[in-house]
């Protein structure tokens, strides 16, 4: 009984774990190896996971430890062939993405794994700064700083100095930015 729900709990987290692992490795193949290792470790140590606490955070911590202890070195030796990840993507520009996905991916790959993972933890997993800080073993301020730097670096790489060229038109942007109506 408990085994079954244990499996179900883990299966439910696989999609996010894969995305997080790709953010670390920039390679779907390596990412899936990491996810596999994480699942095996999580299964073996499930007894140490406290039911009712944050399973995603626990799994991310396991995956992260595996990455930083071995995969990071490996990645330098065996870089993902250029475009290998792009070929696995089925989403085209017609899906309404405001930035070209390939362009964004290339920019993302230029960031450090520390910066990419914070983007995914906060931007995708919607973790709190505190939660991300605990997982990464750094102060909350460092998470905020990394997030800001990661975004700034992406903006720089993608030439997003203004929003005129991409995204909402200038009129709408003005409305968006001016949303708080009382401005002294």
């Amino acid at each position: 009984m408990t085994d079954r729900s244990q499996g179900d709990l883990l299966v439910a987290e696989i999609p996010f774990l894969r995305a997080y692992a790709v953010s670390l490795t920039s390679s779907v193949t390596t990412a899936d190896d990491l996810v596999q290792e994480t699942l095996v470790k999580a299964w073996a140590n499930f007894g140490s996971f406290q039911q009712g606490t944050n399973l995603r955070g626990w799994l991310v911590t396991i995956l992260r430890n595996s990455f930083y202890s071995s995969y990071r070195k490996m990645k330098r030796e065996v870089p993902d062939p250029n475009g290998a990840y792009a070929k696995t993507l089925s989403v085209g520009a017609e899906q309404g993405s405001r930035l070209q996905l390939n362009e964004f991916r290339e920019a993302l790959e230029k960031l450090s794994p520390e910066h990419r993972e914070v983007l995914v933890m906060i931007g995708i997993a919607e973790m709190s700064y505190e939660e991300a800080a605990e997982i990464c073993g750094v102060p909350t301020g460092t998470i905020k700083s990394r997030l800001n730097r990661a975004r700034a670096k992406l903006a720089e790489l993608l030439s997003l100095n203004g929003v005129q060229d991409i995204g909402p038109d200038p009129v709408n942007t003005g409305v968006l930015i001016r949303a708080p109506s009382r401005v002294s």
Partner: protein
Amino acid sequence: MDRSGSEEVFIVQIGLGDSRVVTADDAADDINAEIPVQLDYAVQEVIGSALKDYCNDIIKSPVPDKFLSLLAKLEAEERKKGQSK
């Protein structure tokens, strides 16, 4: 003309986005960074939605069979162990 309008935008932009927090760790985190720390809110939105597009491709794709069979195998092994006790 438009001038007061653009100043207004500028003032509000400063109030948006994450507050700048600089600690010793931040400096160590990326000491060579010569990039602005404060970003236009709309730029953050563009980056956020691009990141979602990038991740959703993986998140929304079905869980590969290899993971399901791995978990099934682990479960079967555990059940076998339980029975032999």
